[in-house]
């Protein structure tokens, strides 16, 4: 039973992280209709168009910086995951075709991670829109 509770706890934590990340990430450009969206600091929660906008320009900058950092770390994780996928193909698979497929998939995941870090850098260079 303690093991089940432990696993359930970890699953909950992972799900929380997932929701937090994507909830936050979706706020990068803001919803097109200005509808409800989430971002991590409480001060930034908007409930509808023109309602409850608590953030100051300063907090906006901090939020943007925080978001960029998260994107960046997520990019690193994706790159490492891509490499692990490629390495796991060597350990777990035997056929050349299967290995090639997995290594190619790993490279694509790495490219996605690199793309995220590039996106972060570009948006930092362009400054607040």
């Amino acid at each position, binding site marked *: 039973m303690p093991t089940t509770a432990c696993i359930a706890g970890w699953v909950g934590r992972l799900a929380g992280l997932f929701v937090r990340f994507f909830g936050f990430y979706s706020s990068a450009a803001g919803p097109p209709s200005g509808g409800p969206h989430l971002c991590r600091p409480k001060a930034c929660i908007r409930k509808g168009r023109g309602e409850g906008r608590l953030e100051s320009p300063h907090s906006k900058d901090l939020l943007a910086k925080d978001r960029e950092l998260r994107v960046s770390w997520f990019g*690193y994780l994706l*790159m*490492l995951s*891509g*490499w*692990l996928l*490629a*390495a796991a193909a*060597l*350990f777990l698979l*035997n056929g*050349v*075709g299967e*290995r*090639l497929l997995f*290594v*190619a998939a*790993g*490279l694509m*995941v*790495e*490219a996605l*991670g*690199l793309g995220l*870090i*590039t996106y972060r*850098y*570009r948006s930092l*260079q*362009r400054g607040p829109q």
Partner: protein
Amino acid sequence: MSLSLCLMSLLLIPFAAAGLALLQQGLGRSRSAAQAMLGSLCALATAAIVFVLLGSAWMGLAGGAAHVLHLGGRTVNWLGAEPLFAAGIRGSLTAGPGRALVLAFGMFAVGLCGLIPINAGSDRWRLAAVCAATALLAAILFPLMAHWVWGGGWLAQLGPLFGPLSGLPGFTDMGGAAVIQVTGGLCALSVAWIVGPRQGKYTEGSAAAIPGHNIVQVLFGCMLALIGWIGLEAAAAMLFYSAGLGQIALTVINAVLAGSAGCLAAVLTTRLRYRKPDASLSANGWIAGLVAGSAGGGRLAPVEVILIALVAGTLVTFLVELLELRLLIDDPGGAISVHLGAGLWGVLAYGLFAPATAPRAELLLSQLIGVATLVGLMFPVIHISHRLLNRVIPFRVDADGDWQGMDIRELGAGAYPEFVLHADEFTPR
């Protein structure tokens, strides 16, 4: 292995460093020329000392002592375990010069690798940070990759580790395209991202062209680099792949062909795109050809090397533009395009064109695993360690120093004191 030929090849490698140093200071601004040259010299010095004291122990030797991991019933050799501070090097000479030769090669190679990011951080990367980043590279980053590929590490042992039945070949890098060029290119990308663009480079959404201040030095640097590259490829082939005299002769031929084809491809591409050949991009094409060709060295046929270098030379002209205009990466010397872009292409091209000692798919697979390791493992490690280092020793000079020039800011005197410079305004593209 001919000892005298190996020694002679080793002695040629510093020409590559001189060539790269000339190239990068020529492509930078005149107000930072002395700092760029001193930075190159300091990087070479730091790399040599740190590598001999620390890095060489972790690079190790093929068949030498190593740290291993036991994973899934397999023994993965992941780090060299030779004595620190090059202890016992004098004693080892009685058994043969092998260890000393590898040490000398590593010392030159890591210096060359350390010069590449200086090119990308030109005009704004502080001297202290250059030394610190080079020390990090020489102590940990370069030896790690060098051990995996040249020191009997897991990438070199892919066959025995993972494919004894199907005969999966080990990852091959005959002349340092992956270990030196791509690793250096990844460092360059990381540095360019950390230091950001030069002031005045991107204004009002458009990129300003900041031309290099001495294109003659750049082109002369290319010629010097060719001599060094011949030595580098020949020495690596002899030390790590037991190349014979015939293969060394082919290595020399291929190096010259690679540089030539890369340069001509860039000349032709820029002539077609901009109506006139661009000298700095053509110089980059020359180096890109050398970089791409160095993955296969003397194992490829001359026609294949020409084809690889033609692609590399063309690719570089597009990559430079992509990085500068689309990705907003200010890389004054084109180091990322040349060393990272052409290096990765060269490593992959070896899998496509290498003599079929194994099924083609397996050759390609082993090269792809090398690429995945470089991009997916080495780059995060490099970039995170650079970002941490940046917190201790800030990489970028302050805003005043950016306009003032690195020479006055860091050295107190300009490289060309008799000239008065008025180049604050640049023509936007």
